[in-house]
Structures are given as structure tokens and as C-alpha cells.
């Protein structure tokens, strides 16, 4: 990638890059395939770093991973409801992040879980928190000569997490809004919470104010409604064919409340 710079493009699953190229939206001179790097397909728990997801793991690899099923079932569920089976067998977790589509499903939950990504170039490697990775629609901090090799979810105190893609169909639909939450409960007090929203801003965003509203207060339905309202106010969606700005904001309110309730009472689901 050092040699080709902006003229080159990394090819992982190809479900995004090839369809963009066919539509004339992308015209790299050179595609560099990562497909034969088997080590980047693995999903494992590293005692020192947390759960590591190789960038080339497909969505179905995530859905079927015993490690994720045990630790973060929410991530398996998210992957299982993406696109359709053919795309889930081909498209990769790393690709879903690098393409940086604002409605992508993996970023909100991974941000809620505090994940980071490893970017590697011939000059070395660096770690970037996923919430600092995205800079705009289809834009990230990754340089042209860097390759995203892995996603790391550091060990944490979260007792529950979940994601809901609210789409217009059950399959093959982009998110109208995507709401991910991770909570660390102690009795009925929420000691830590992260709320990440997709499809309602140029990049996935954290709802910081809403998080503060919830922290260290006894959880009631009324409080969750207040948190939902706050999150809706923090979002900045556009109006398009899938929904108006007002509709999206109201759905953020509804699903933030529901997802918090689910993660608080059911764990990582």
C-alpha cells in the first residue's frame, strides 16, 4: 500500500468495494487482496488485551464465534441481522468499519463496548479507539498506506449490551436508526454506560449527555425515558427516503429507552 498510495485499495470481502467499482463510484488502479492472510480471520480472547476480532472475519464468522457467543452475544446477534446470508459469508468486520457508512451496524455496538482498531503500515502499527476512527461519511483516520488488521474489545465491567437496527425490512435493509448500549449495573444503579448511535449523524456518535443522565441514579422507566429524550436531542440526523429527521430523532428516543431496558435486565443480548 506504500507503493500505491491513493491509487490502491484494499480488498477484503469485496461486497462493498466491488459493488462500488461496478457503479463507477470507486476506480482504484490496483486492488490488494488480503484474502490469503488466514491469521486475520481469527476471533479469540487474549488474556492481555481482551477479545480480538481479525479484520477478515466475516459477519457469519462473528455470528458463529463461540468466544463471542459466550462473551458478547449482542455482537453475534448484530452480525446475524446484517444484510443477507450471501453477504454475511463474504463481507468482513474490518470492511464494515473501513467503509465508514454512517448506517453501518457494527460500529455503534463496538463503540459502546469501547473497542479499538489496530492500523498497520510498513512504518509500524498504531491503535485507534473506534469512536475516534470515523471522520465523516466514508471517511476515517486510516491513511492510504495503512491496513486495519484487527478489532480489540478490551475487558470491561459491562454487565449488558445490545444493539437494535431499526430498518424498514427485516433483511437487506439499511438502518433508519441504530442504537447500541453497554451498561455496568450494580444493583439498580447504573455505574457506567455507553450509548452509541448510528445513521443519525455523519459518523456514529456517542450520546454523552444521555449517559450522564443515567449514571448512578436508580433505574426507573421514567429515568430511561428521560435518557432517551436526551439522546434524541444529541443526534443530528438527515431526512431522506428512509425517514425524516424528526422521525429518526423520535426513534432514537424510543430505541434508546428500550435497548437500555433490555441490556439492564437481560445482559449481553
Amino acid at each position: 500500500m506504500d507503493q500505491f498510495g491513493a491509487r490502491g485499495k484494499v480488498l477484503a470481502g469485496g461486497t462493498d468495494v466491488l459493488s462500488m467499482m461496478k457503479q463507477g463510484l470507486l476506480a482504484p488502479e490496483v486492488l490488494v487482496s488480503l484474502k490469503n492472510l488466514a491469521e486475520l480471520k481469527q476471533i479469540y480472547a487474549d488474556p492481555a488485551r481482551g477479545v480480538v476480532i481479525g479484520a477478515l472475519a466475516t459477519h457469519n464468522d462473528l455470528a458463529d464465534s463461540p468466544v463471542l457467543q459466550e462473551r458478547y452475544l449482542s455482537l453475534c446477534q448484530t452480525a446475524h441481522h446484517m444484510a443477507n446470508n450471501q453477504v454475511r459469508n463474504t463481507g468482513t468486520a474490518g470492511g464494515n468499519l473501513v467503509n465508514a457508512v454512517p448506517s453501518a451496524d457494527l460500529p455503534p455496538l463496538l463503540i459502546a463496548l469501547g473497542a479499538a482498531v489496530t492500523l498497520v503500515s510498513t512504518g509500524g502499527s498504531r491503535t485507534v479507539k473506534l469512536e475516534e476512527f470515523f471522520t465523516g461519511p466514508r471517511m476515517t483516520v486510516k491513511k492510504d498506506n495503512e491496513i486495519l488488521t484487527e478489532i480489540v474489545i478490551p475487558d470491561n465491567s459491562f454487565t449488558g449490551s445490545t444493539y437494535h437496527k431499526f430498518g424498514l425490512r427485516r433483511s437487506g435493509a439499511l438502518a433508519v436508526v441504530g442504537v447500541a448500549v453497554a451498561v455496568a449495573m450494580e444493583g439498580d444503579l447504573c455505574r457506567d454506560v455507553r450509548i452509541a448511535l448510528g445513521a443519525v449523524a455523519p459518523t456514529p456518535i456517542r450520546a454523552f449527555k444521555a449517559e450522564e443522565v443515567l449514571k448512578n441514579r436508580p433505574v426507573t422507566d421514567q429515568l430511561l425515558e428521560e435518557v432517551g429524550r436526551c439522546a434524541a436531542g444529541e443526534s443530528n440526523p438527515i431526512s431522506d427516503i428512509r425517514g425524516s429527521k424528526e422521525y429518526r430523532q423520535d426513534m432514537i428516543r424510543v430505541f434508546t429507552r428500550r435497548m437500555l431496558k433490555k441490556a439492564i435486565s437481560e445482559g449481553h443480548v
Partner: protein
Amino acid sequence: MSMEAITDKHGVKRYLITLNVNGDSYTKVVKGNTVLVNVLRDDLDLTGTKKGCELGDCGSCTVLMDGKPVNSCLVLAVEADGREITTIEGLAQHEQLDRLQDSFVNHAAVQCGYCTPGMIMSAKALLSKNPDPTEQEVREAIAGNLCRCTGYVNIVKAVLAAAKAEGGAAR
């Protein structure tokens, strides 16, 4: 692993790939931008696999790669090198249709027929992994295959009936 490449006088590179398709091994010379579905249809005359949207939305080009359904319009031929591909032509044994194919015929699950090969390949992959699926699981498995004629009801019936028949044979 590097792939053998031949460069012609115009500077276009071609690559030597070996595909295992329906149990037979084929060695072909392809350009870097050739997609799998075109090798199957144009080079191997396996035109049962259809091309619809060519963008990975419709599923009419579904084939099994190492047993898993993929959209062959979004797989580069060079990336399929060394893989095992099953197309709709690989299901019937001589004159004997696969149970799924029989079931599609018997349940009138075919109208114009364009989605049928892809639909059957997705269903085949499901039944290999899960011989006794629920209706929900069948619907999820074929969610990436669009049919614009029959409306899925008979397709789902056909897959469920084929699963039942296969289970019966095993018992």
C-alpha cells in the same frame, strides 16, 4: 502466495486459476477484474447461474463456495482460485433431480424461474447445515434471494417439504 500471471503486449495481466466446479477441476486464464459468475457462465457454459443486479442485492447468482452461499457477481475469479464451487448444475445426479428441485416443481415454487437457481442454492446450504429448519429459518436463509413472481409462499413450502422428505429418508 503469488499467482502465476501472464502479461500481454497491451500490458494486461492474466492469471492462471484452478476452480473445482461441481466436482470437476478446471484451469482457466482470467483477467484480474473477471468475476466468478462470468467464468461460470461464459467459460464453463454453466448458465444455470443467473445474473440479475450484479451488485450483490438480488441473489440470482448465488453459488456455494466451500459449501457457503455467496453472490458470484461479487467474487473475483482470482479469489475463487483453489475453492470448491457448487452451482445449480451440480445438484442433479445424472437424470435424478435433487430433492429440493423436485420439491420446487411439485409446489409450483417456480414461475418465471429466474431466481430459482439462486434460491435453491441458498436452500441447499441451509439444509446441509440444518436438516430440519423452522419456517423462520427458511425465510432467513433465502432473505438474500429476491423473487418478483411467486411471493415466497410456495418457495418456503417447497423448502420445508424437501427438508421433511430428506428427514424421512434418513429415518
